[in-house]
């Protein structure tokens, strides 16, 4: 079999954009139903009051803030990984950068809804915006929530730009092959792209600038999310380790989400010849490093707390190690380390299936990690008289499930309108460095076999 010609690539990667199967519509309908249920649950909460959620004194933050941290964390999949791989000039990155960047944008959009969903008076959320108002006050810049507001908006703006820039040549490609209304839309989206050397040069320059700029922004976002907790004098929150701990956890869960998304795309869009075992293998190695880093952070945090033996911190410490939250804690350790470590460390298991199993565990484990950071600390603050507990209600559970459905739904829609693998970057890679391109290499192996 000869190397894939540009026509082949066009055909394979643009195929999902034309026509949808019955199966697609069934899955689509189910996801829409779940998302609608979640929106309905939020409407119910707005109508009756935030009391329909399970939060109570003293656990004033529960599932909603867990979801917020989880989804913002997941968003580090994309842009950060993709930017680092671009700067490191890792050629194998080409087919996966766009899948990763899309996760970032959608996970951020989902995560950013939670600061509004969890408000007691969500209809006043716009008071967080700095605008000259009749009330005569600006938002309080000392509040970490305001830092969040700016960090998340900056990251969203940056990652949307980072996603859109390399889509321009692909929009132009679709434009050239489309007719009618579709052509009009893609003409507008491709911003007059004609493929002149000057345009290519500018695109490359812009991508380089964005790749460098997005990394500090991504790091700052999850540091600031961690400071929502670390700035408050709450046992086990008030810790200097939180910012790097959160950033590492974010990248950890992000890579796991990317592997799951890639495995789904590979099966559903028949991209077996583009998303290769080598991609999973390489991401699996990265995931292994992050898993070890995560265990290191947890160990460092727990050891210093235990050795310090401060009474209010120890109350929370034992609550999670051996107390009522310990089943969740040890499930988290199992999901984030005990299962992924052998799967990813032993070469024989580091297959696509192995990586996906590890990744599913990690996504569950990282959600639990966010929950275990937030809830046990709040339930056991200083004065034992006002210790409390927390149970979510159906409203919070529905909204949580709805976010996962929303992610899948947005991803499905995106893959119908934009090639999920960057067509021009793939061709560019084959043209520039055919000897290093995994897609070509594999075909060479097949040809010689």
């Amino acid at each position, binding site marked *: 079999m000869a190397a894939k010609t540009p026509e082949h690539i066009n055909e394979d990667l643009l195929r999902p954009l034309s026509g949808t199967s019955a199966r697609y519509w069934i899955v689509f309908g189910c996801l829409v139903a779940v998302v609608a249920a979640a929106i309905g649950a939020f409407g119910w909460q707005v109508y009756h009051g935030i009391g329909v959620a399970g*939060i*109570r004194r003293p656990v004033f933050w529960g599932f909603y803030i867990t979801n917020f941290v989880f989804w913002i964390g997941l968003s580090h999949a994309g842009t950060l990984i993709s930017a680092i791989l671009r700067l490191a000039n890792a050629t194998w990155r080409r087919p996966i950068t766009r899948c990763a960047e899309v996760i970032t944008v959608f996970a951020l959009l989902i995560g950013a809804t939670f600061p509004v969903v969890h408000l007691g008076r969500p209809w006043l959320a716009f008071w967080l915006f700095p605008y000259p108002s009749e009330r005569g006050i600006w938002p309080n810049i000392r509040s970490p929530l305001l830092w969040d507001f700016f960090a998340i908006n900056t990251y969203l703006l940056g990652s949307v730009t980072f996603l859109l820039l390399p889509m321009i040549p692909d929009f132009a490609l679709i434009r050239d092959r489309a007719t009618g209304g579709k052509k009009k839309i893609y003409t507008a989206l491709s911003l007059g792209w004609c493929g002149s050397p000057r345009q290519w040069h500018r695109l490359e320059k812009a991508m380089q600038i964005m790749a460098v700029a997005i990394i500090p922004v991504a790091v700052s976002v999850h540091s600031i999310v961690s400071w929502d907790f670390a700035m408050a004098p709450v046992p086990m929150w008030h810790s200097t380790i939180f910012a790097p701990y959160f950033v590492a956890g974010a990248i950890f869960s992000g890579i796991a989400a990317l592997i799951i998304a890639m495995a789904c795309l590979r099966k559903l869009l028949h991209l077996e010849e583009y998303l290769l075992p080598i991609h999973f293998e390489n991401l699996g190695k990265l995931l292994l490093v992050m898993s070890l880093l995560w265990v290191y952070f947890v160990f460092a945090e727990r050891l210093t707390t235990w050795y310090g033996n401060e009474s209010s911190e120890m109350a929370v410490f034992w609550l999670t190690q051996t107390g009522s939250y310990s089943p969740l804690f040890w499930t988290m350790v199992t999901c984030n380390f005990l299962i992924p470590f052998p799967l990813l460390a032993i070469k024989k298991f580091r297959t696509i299936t192995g990586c996906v199993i590890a990744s599913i565990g990690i996504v569950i484990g990282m959600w639990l990690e966010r929950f275990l950071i937030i809830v046990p600390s709040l339930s056991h603050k200083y004065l034992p*008289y006002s210790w409390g507990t927390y149970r979510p209600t159906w409203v919070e559970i529905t909204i949580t499930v709805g976010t996962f459905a929303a992610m899948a739904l947005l991803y499905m829609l995106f893959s119908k309108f934009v090639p999920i693998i960057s067509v021009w970057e793939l061709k560019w890679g084959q043209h520039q460095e055919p000897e290093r391109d995994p897609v070509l290499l594999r075909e060479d192996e097949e040809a010689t076999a």
Partner: protein
Amino acid sequence: MAHQWGMVIDLDRCTGCEACVVACHAENNISTVGEDEAARGRAKHWIRVERYYEGEFPDVKTKFMPVLCQQCDAAPCEPVCPTFASYHTSEGLNGQVYNRCIGTRYCANACPYNVRFFNFYNPAWEKPLHLQLNPDVSVRSVGVMEKCTFCVQRIKAGEIQAAAEKRVVKDGEIQPACVQSCPTKAMVFGDLSDPQSEVSRLARSNRATKLLGELGTLPKVTYLQRDSWHGGEDS
């Protein structure tokens, strides 16, 4: 110099009768939430009497400690509020502007004393109880945080009265509802910026201590430890 309102609570005098709790509810229009909601931890008591037990049954001793907003000078609740609903007044009170509150509940998480209370639903009073609402205190809506104000409406009324009569506020003239209702006079309220006031004098007692003072929140409520805790005659 601006007043610095403070309180002293003598734990030797507190009998745990909870008259302060009832008076506070009546004065400040604090709605009750019903049995089920209270069981879920959603009861609102701006002042509560914490009970701690010492010893094994049947030889048990109960220790009472009224806990209300400590009106900290370095209050963890204040900087975290994104809308300035929680802010420091010139008289050292932790103000809570209900109209500015959007309900992030960050202040309540940051408060080490757990003295902030959230309106999970709109408050309701069975008729005719709505007629006994205090017209000097605003009723809080759903989604809004609330807490002890040191009865700021009484403080303001006292200051306005004194200004109208062109005199200074007399020591003991202003009393929050809890202080006024305490049958054993366990609570004393006054101006900490006046070294001669009773509250200042008591705050200098060698029994004086601050609740969770090690956190550096600089509370303006001072507790007078039970002598029995120091092996006094009560023990």
